[in-house]
């Protein structure tokens, strides 16, 4: 029964380091990839917040040791590394033109979180900006499934 199910795996069996065939490169974007980029934006927001928090606690003229021992800063860099890995994994199964603009959600998380963490002021302009980005990203995502 399982064997009779239509399974599409030939793309996985593509020869290593072969240039992408039109079929592989142009398949529609998978939901899994959209989920991975979504996760990427959360990790990216964490990276930005950690780095801002870390740089705020640095002395005036930090040496290399002060940078390396600054835990939030190091954690921020680590988040950027995870961020890149997630993005590449997402890009394996989807269009760059769909997945890349989703990264703009990072602005949304940072704008929502920084008033809580850094007591940045909240205002209507930021709220409108967040709303527009969410609508724009949803539109691109929805368009990729249409």
């Amino acid at each position: 029964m399982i064997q009779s199910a239509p399974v599409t795996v030939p793309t996985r069996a593509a020869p290593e380091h072969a240039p992408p065939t039109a079929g592989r490169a142009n398949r529609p974007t998978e939901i899994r990839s959209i989920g991975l980029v979504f996760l990427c934006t959360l990790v990216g927001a964490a990276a930005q917040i950690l780095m801002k928090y870390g740089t705020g606690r640095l002395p005036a003229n930090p040496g290399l040791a002060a940078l390396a021992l600054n835990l939030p800063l190091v954690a921020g860099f680590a988040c950027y590394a995870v961020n890149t890995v997630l993005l590449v994994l997402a890009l394996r199964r989807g269009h760059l033109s769909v997945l890349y603009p989703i990264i703009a959600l990072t602005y949304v998380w940072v704008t929502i979180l920084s008033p809580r963490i850094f007591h940045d002021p909240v205002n209507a302009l930021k709220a409108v900006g967040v709303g527009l980005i969410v609508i724009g990203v949803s539109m691109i995502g929805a368009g990729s499934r249409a």
Partner: protein
Amino acid sequence: MTTPFSSMVLVLAASFIGSFGAVSLKAGADRLPPGILHLFRSWRIALGVALFLFSSVFYLWGLKHGSLTVLYPLVSLGYVWTLFWSRLFFREPFNRFKVLGLALILVGVLFIGLGNR
């Protein structure tokens, strides 16, 4: 706060370099055999990461002077370049959702930049 022209050029350069980082990551991702470890052995992915790092140097350099209101939206122009490259290099289709969605994102980033003044 007035934004020097040099800052705008630097941030624009950052967005341009960064968009090629995205292209290199995508080209690398398309050629990856299964298995997460291959990710660390692909020169295209290494080049993409290098371009991202390189672009962030320009970005930080640009942000030293000038207002976020002007510079933030310039950064997000990277999404526009990437849309063109994805059509040029990967033959991905344009559709009205992508164009309209991207326009909304740019205006949204502009608003957040204005709100951060």
